[in-house]
């Protein structure tokens, strides 16, 4: 009976999930990364390019931790992954294209007109 009930609670499409312990570990990692992100703003003397690159890398790591573990995409089917990653890549291309069109730069200093 209990086995039957447990089966009913499982998604029928085969997507697996992380354990509660993994969820908590991921949450702790997210909290630490966020604290480091914010703290890095208050450390004087970090070169602009290094600061921006580090902030973007930490943000990307947080993004993929949430998508992979909390949204279970790490355990989900390839079709689900493609449905999200494809448009995500297009969104990144949109951002880069708009920045290039308008001459906006994050890493490099702005050209003097």
């Amino acid at each position, binding site marked *: 009976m209990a086995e039957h009930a447990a089966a009913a*609670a499982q998604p029928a499409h085969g997507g697996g999930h992380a354990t509660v312990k993994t969820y908590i570990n991921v949450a702790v990692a997210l909290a630490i990364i966020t604290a480091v992100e914010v703290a890095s703003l208050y450390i004087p003397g970090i070169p602009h390019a290094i600061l921006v690159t580090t902030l973007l890398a930490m943000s990307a790591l*947080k993004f993929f931790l949430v998508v992979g573990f909390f949204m279970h995409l790490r355990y989900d089917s390839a*079709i689900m992954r493609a449905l999200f990653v494809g448009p995500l890549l297009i969104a990144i291309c949109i951002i880069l294209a708009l920045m290039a069109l308008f001459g906006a730069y994050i890493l490099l200093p702005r050209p003097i007109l």
Partner: protein
Amino acid sequence: MSEHATTHAAHDPNLGNTGLDHRKMGMWIFLGSDCMFFGSLIGTYLAYKGKSLSGPTPYDVFNIPLTSYSAALLLASSLTMVLALAGLQQHRIKAAAGWLLATAILGLHFVLNQVYEFASFALHEGLTLSTSLFGSSFFVLTGFHGAHVTGGVLWLLILVSLAWRGKLDARDYTKVEIAGLYWHFVDIVWIAIFTVIYLIP
């Protein structure tokens, strides 16, 4: 057991030809399109960054401690959301309802912080939607995100209400999982906004 599960899956009207739940697939498609929506808004903000002719700059108005607190609220709400899902999976309906309620409260707190931030920008800093390119692109981007969070809070409260009335159980796992996907999405959008808009100098 596996035969039973196969039979159960075969009769599930929510499974399409791919063997995947079409409700969940629909949510992923929606989230993919929403990615492009927010990508356009973030790109527009970055394109206009530093090009305002007048008005306060981001460095004049941003309250990083408050925004960091808001970011922590949303990250915490992602944890409570997955704990709700885990509770439902383990047939602990009351615990699941409690975690869902906690998620909604954290989300509501985030929205209230945003209302406070917007009000202080408008009343104390003189920054509105029509003040400058910065004002327009900032309020449109963060306003749409706030609207998404508000929609998510309402969705979560509906689920809590269903659970309290005994109309939500472990068989509704996918319904809660789909709400969770939406909720985590607003979290990852905020992860991007927080870094790109608030933290990058």
